[in-house]
């Protein structure tokens, strides 16, 4: 019979259409604009409509998601920002497209380098979001961000000021990694303190 295939095909799409409404009723209005609904729509049990209505809805980003590096600072006693970066130069060396530029601070009296960056630039238009800088930083100072909404009318050249973000922000976006690193850092400090005590 002619047209059987067309009817069959229409049946397939109709089923999907109905599936959407079945799930809507089952989820009682929680299927849209709610994080559990979005999570459900991108799980193995997802049926019917699949799309996420960006920007009203956003897919939650996983912890490891990486987008453009930033520099982490700790809050000092008087509320000043203490950058973790020591301008050791590993990130500009490992950066595949070579988009990181660092000027090291030197002590004007002695001419010796001070472990603190005087200038730090990332050309975000060249950055390929590979995450190697964050991976190989020995001081947990440079980390990959979660903020992906960077559209702008000009080139995104990030300087020290726009790159710096607080440690609490970092702990907010990557809680598991941050706890792990904090623990490792504390253990190292404790070990060093213990060794220092012994040496005395």
């Amino acid at each position, binding site marked *: 019979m002619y047209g059987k*295939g067309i009817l069959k*095909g229409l049946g*397939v*799409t109709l089923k999907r259409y109905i599936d959407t409404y079945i799930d809507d009723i089952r989820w009682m209005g929680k299927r849209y604009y709610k994080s559990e609904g979005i999570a459900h729509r*991108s*799980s*193995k049990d*997802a049926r019917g409509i*699949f799309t996420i209505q960006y920007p009203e809805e956003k897919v939650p*980003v*996983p*912890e*490891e*998601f*990486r987008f453009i590096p930033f520099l982490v600072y700790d809050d000092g006693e008087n509320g000043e920002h203490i950058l973790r970066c020591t*301008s050791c*130069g*590993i990130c*500009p*060396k*490992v*950066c*595949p497209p*070579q988009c*990181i*530029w*660092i*000027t*090291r601070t030197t002590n004007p009296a002695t001419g010796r*380098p001070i472990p603190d960056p005087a*200038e730090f*630039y990332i*050309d975000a238009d*060249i950055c*390929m*979001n*590979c*995450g*190697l800088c964050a*991976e*190989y930083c020995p001081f947990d100072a440079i980390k*990959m961000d979660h903020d992906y909404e960077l559209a702008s009318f000009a*080139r995104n*050249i990030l300087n020290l000021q726009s790159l710096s973000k607080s440690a609490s922000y970092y702990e907010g976006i990557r809680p*598991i990694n941050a706890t792990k690193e904090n623990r490792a850092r504390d253990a190292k400090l404790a070990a060093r303190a213990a060794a220092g005590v012994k040496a005395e």
Partner: protein
Amino acid sequence: MTTPAPVETLDLSTLLPGFVTTDTRPGYSGWVVDKNHLVEFASKLRDEFGYDLLTSVTGVDYLPDDKMEVVYHAFKTTGGPVLNYKVQVPRQDPIEVPSLVSVYPGVELQEREIWDLFGIIFTGHPDLRRILMWEGFEGHPLRKDWKEAYFEEESKPFKSRWPDGKIVQAENNNKFSDNIAYPAGFDPEKWIPEGEDALYGSLAKYEYTSQDGIKNDHIVVNLGPQHPSTHGVFRVSAVLDGEIIANLKPVMGYLHRNHEKIGERNTFLQNMPYTDRLDYLSSLSNNFGYALTVEKLMNIEVPERAEYIRVIMAELTRITNHCMALGALFNDLGTFFTPLIYLLEERELILDIFEAVTGSRMMCNYFRFGGVARDFPEGILEKIKGLVFERLPKKIDEIDRFMSDNEIIRSRGIGQGILTAEDAIRFSATGPLLRASGVPYDVRRADPYSIYDRFDFDIVVRQNGDIYDRYMVRLEEMRQSVRIIQQAIKGLPVGEFQTGKPQYQVRVPAGESYGRVESPKGELAFYVISTGKPSPWRYHVRAPSFINLTPYGHMCVGQKIADIVAILGSIDIVLGEVDR
């Protein structure tokens, strides 16, 4: 049938005295063939020793030794390790090497690429034109003394970045205003592209007289480079006799960025994220191939857990790639968008897993030399299990049910774009294209790497070599990948995911290495030469979708013009890899 002799016992220098010597450089293997005996040697190797599949041809510029080298990698389709041989020629223009097109037609595009990038003339090549660069281009960019417009230093890391990094935007560094060097006396405004003439001239005569004395015209039709059915910026130049294709040539290079030159400037590790950008639909397979190649050179082992993670990720990649390939093929065949979107849903769910594990959906950059970048995060295994044990088998069956008996798919697929087994091997086709033609050749079985020898899976073969069979091979391969992942998840051990401490500057001993994996598109191989420095001396990508285009014209001749698109869709190309 006797088992073929392993390569180690095959002493070619005594079997073929006079034209072969052993390559004795430290870290190198294989044979050095005398240039004048190359064609004879290659035909002997193919006919008497069974090396019927010449997968890769590439050039190497040994500037300090004042030598150019052409490296060939040959395999048997019955399986086994590589046999590589080289031809060395002095580095004075004109550099000439005999072409192997008469023995292995599969080298046609590759020899053109070597001419384009190294300036080695292949005598006897039927159509030696530039392929990736444009016709008016001056110089041969992969030569060691050629410098790009943005040239800063021979190798990264550049000294200007630290400790006195003052930001300079790359475009201000450019000594040419337009990022290209014109030859002396060249004016682009007055230029008439003689390359086009050469292209059309290589296709066929336009005018011919038929048997009854009537003068006829052939028409040249260009499809692309801006055409939605070419899967990217790819151009097809076809000569038509009415509606029938009389001859056809692929034209490429619109997305060329000289990946291999960038690779030679990079350090070994810095190349890893760049490999993601080759075949951007299956970045983890590219990572896999590159990691294997460098690990071979470094001679390091990968921990068990990392091997399992690698296999799981690579097979998930195969499923995502085939989802995309089949969806696009359906589009090309005329079943517009609904099946593609259904397949993209499954792909999307797998990309969610990639994002959670590697940090990125497509540019994964996950493999490291001696392992992977990080372990599976918590809870991801449940997600993968849910997909491969529950959802994916059902969905693949669903696509099978919807599409395999579909009248459009069958009538446009069966018997169209046929590539016979002999032709597929001659044209160096690999991957689903080769297997659909009845050759059960899969690198995972023919020359097992990583831990693929531990898994129980079938090599999917179909016999007819037409579009429909290529579709069926891909569909069935998705099922086999699900099977492999199911076994890998069951066997996933606990333990380390990387050998040694993570290093950003690896020590790679001098030597050459050819590492290959079965990427979703075919045999993906990397040929890396190290001189012991932080950057590779030569970094070559044997791109499967580029080489799978060699038989494209052959498959199309005699077909209708509408099949150009369908056959291209069945080859499954990604332009990031074709143009590199």
